[in-house]
């Protein structure tokens, strides 16, 4: 206790000294602070790698359709085309958002017990199990999805094996269900690891205390574990949703384009349609939708607590 008091006093003194130093140096406001200086590389990277491309896409969205008059023309024609009641592009957005939502819900249910096991049960094996979940990420997503295609295809691994025992494989390939399966498979690690982080933040003592006080397992889960792990769960959900809403390979390879997702429509606009402004307008709308949803979710998160600053 004495150590803590001493450390606090030293910190207060240091802060006071720093404040006095600043007051004694009137030229300092013109200088870049050390924090600003340190953040310059990140700021520049963000400016060039994130803001600039996004601004270009946004500018293209307001350019004359089927032209490259970016920054030289301004029109709302691309948005008029998209919001035209006769245009069915909205169905692609609905499919993207619905598939992403379903992926998040399914992954929350699937990943939670695994995360709980990694945080509480597997002990020294947790590292090995984590590697098993991470390892597929080293293989290209397309290769993995083609692998699943061979698994589900007629006379493939599943159908062929079942035929040996006189049964037939289910006809699931090239359906929206196969697309959803692919998304759940691909995005599992992105839900799992933030969830593990969240569950690892739940103090064991708190769970034990609740148990000593007679709380049931369900009550412990509902009143202690879930609320305390929620920041990690929310980050997993957010990450998964943002990635899943932009997914296209799953609907192409496993889904056989049984549904067209928003990113596929964007791709068509940029390629076969030779209409970059329309593709940019579609991309901008998707970005805004995902951005708003993400901001709402982030506003409910206490990032400082998750990162252990408090």
């Amino acid at each position, binding site marked *: 206790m004495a150590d803590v008091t001493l450390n606090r006093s030293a910190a207060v003194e240091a802060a006071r000294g720093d404040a006095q130093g600043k007051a004694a140096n009137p030229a300092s406001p013109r200088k870049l602070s050390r924090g600003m200086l340190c953040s310059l590389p990140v700021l520049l990277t963000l400016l060039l790698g994130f803001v600039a491309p996004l601004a270009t896409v946004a500018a293209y969205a307001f350019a004359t359709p089927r032209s490259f008059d970016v920054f030289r023309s301004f029109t709302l024609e691309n948005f008029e085309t998209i919001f035209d009641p006769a245009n069915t592009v909205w*169905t692609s957005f609905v499919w993207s958002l619905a598939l992403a939502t379903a992926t998040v819900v399914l992954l929350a249910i699937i990943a939670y017990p695994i995360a709980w096991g990694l945080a509480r049960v597997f002990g020294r094996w947790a590292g090995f199990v984590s590697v098993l979940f991470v390892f597929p990420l080293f293989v290209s997503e397309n290769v993995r999805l*083609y692998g699943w295609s061979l698994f589900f295809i*007629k006379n493939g691994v599943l159908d062929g094996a079942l035929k040996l025992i006189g049964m037939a494989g289910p006809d699931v390939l090239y359906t929206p269900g196969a697309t959803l399966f692919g998304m759940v498979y691909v995005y599992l690690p992105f839900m799992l690891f933030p969830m593990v982080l969240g569950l690892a933040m739940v103090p064991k003592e708190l769970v034990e205390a609740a148990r000593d006080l007679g709380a049931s397992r369900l009550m412990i889960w509902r009143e202690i574990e879930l609320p305390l792990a929620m920041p990690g769960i929310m980050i997993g959900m957010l990450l998964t949703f943002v990635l899943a809403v932009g997914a296209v390979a799953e609907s192409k390879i496993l889904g056989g384009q049984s549904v067209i997702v928003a990113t596929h429509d964007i791709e068509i606009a940029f390629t*076969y349609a030779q209409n970059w402004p329309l593709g940019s307008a579609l991309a901008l709308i998707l970005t805004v939708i995902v951005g708003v949803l993400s901001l709402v979710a982030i506003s409910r998160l206490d990032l400082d607590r998750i990162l252990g600053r408090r």
Partner: protein
Amino acid sequence: MTGISKRDVLKIMGGAALAGPFVNMQSAFAARDKELNILCWEGYNSAQVLDPFRSEKSANVKAESLTNDPTMINRLRAGETKVWDLINVNNPWARKIMYPEGLIKPLPKDEFEPFFEKMLPQFKAPYRWAMSDDGKELLGMAQRFGPYSFVVNTDKVSRKTAEEQGWEIFNDPSLKGKYGILESDDWNVFNIFLIAGLNPFKEHDAAELEKFTETAKRIFGGAKLVGDIAAMNQALVSGEIDLHMTGGTYSVSPARADGHPNLRAVTPLKGPIDGKGGVAWIEITSTVNNPNLSPLATEFLKHVQDPAVAHTVAFAEGTFNPVAQMGNKACFDLFTKEELDAIQYDSLEEEMSRSAEYDIVPDYDKALEILTAAKRAKG
């Protein structure tokens, strides 16, 4: 403290902004005699084709492959003429789009026209698709080509039936759910028109577009899957589908070479394009209108005319195709019986004669919109 002020940072940024254009200018006018950038369909980007040229010229050769023409053309339109030296696309683009738009520059006729004399008879100079509209300028070199209509599993649908029925086969309700569609939407526009009994390469009136709409909805609605070449061949081999719309030697040759000779590209006996039912493509490789074009661009075009290199191009990774240089005995003799079988050489001439050449669809934008909506309606 570091002593760097906001003023210093502004000075650095200002300096960088001023220096930027000069840096670009320097790179723009830097010697490019050891550098070549190729925008192409897959095959030309393979190490088998590029590595010997790289070694021979001690050059840094970069090639980016794409799988549709409109994307490549748009890259040039977006300002990438400064980046690329060669562009390899299908036949109508050089003559009808890229040259009129100033995206490519002509080749020296005296140097390149003699190569056409050694090509297959239909490519003899002046070869229409290699020439400008006025017939004065040579705009590119021909190499790979092939018929491209549809592909069947002959164990399920005989070649004779497929050829005789032609595009009408896709109107057969009993085949619903038994066919696939290759994800190649520019070609799908042609083929939906053909299934609707219409010539794709002319302006269409409202009634014809209505027919196109109905056909597109029905054909996409009845497809088992829409996918790339790998997906189509996989589905044909496994028995998921019996045939697929849009495809030809280019798409099925890898499966045939892999031991599936029962999969066969088919060209209808007749159809609505002045009696022809098939469509064929011919690649034309042109020099980009790059302000600082690499001298290696024309060197590479000469390099791929060599019989051995032309054979390598025909059997580069990805897809296997006939090449115009097969007209040269030295080149033709390099093809084994198995290779000729993979590219269906036995019927190549008759299939090409039954095919119209790939052309621009005047109302492509509208047709693609309808087709994309039909794809969405499938869900």
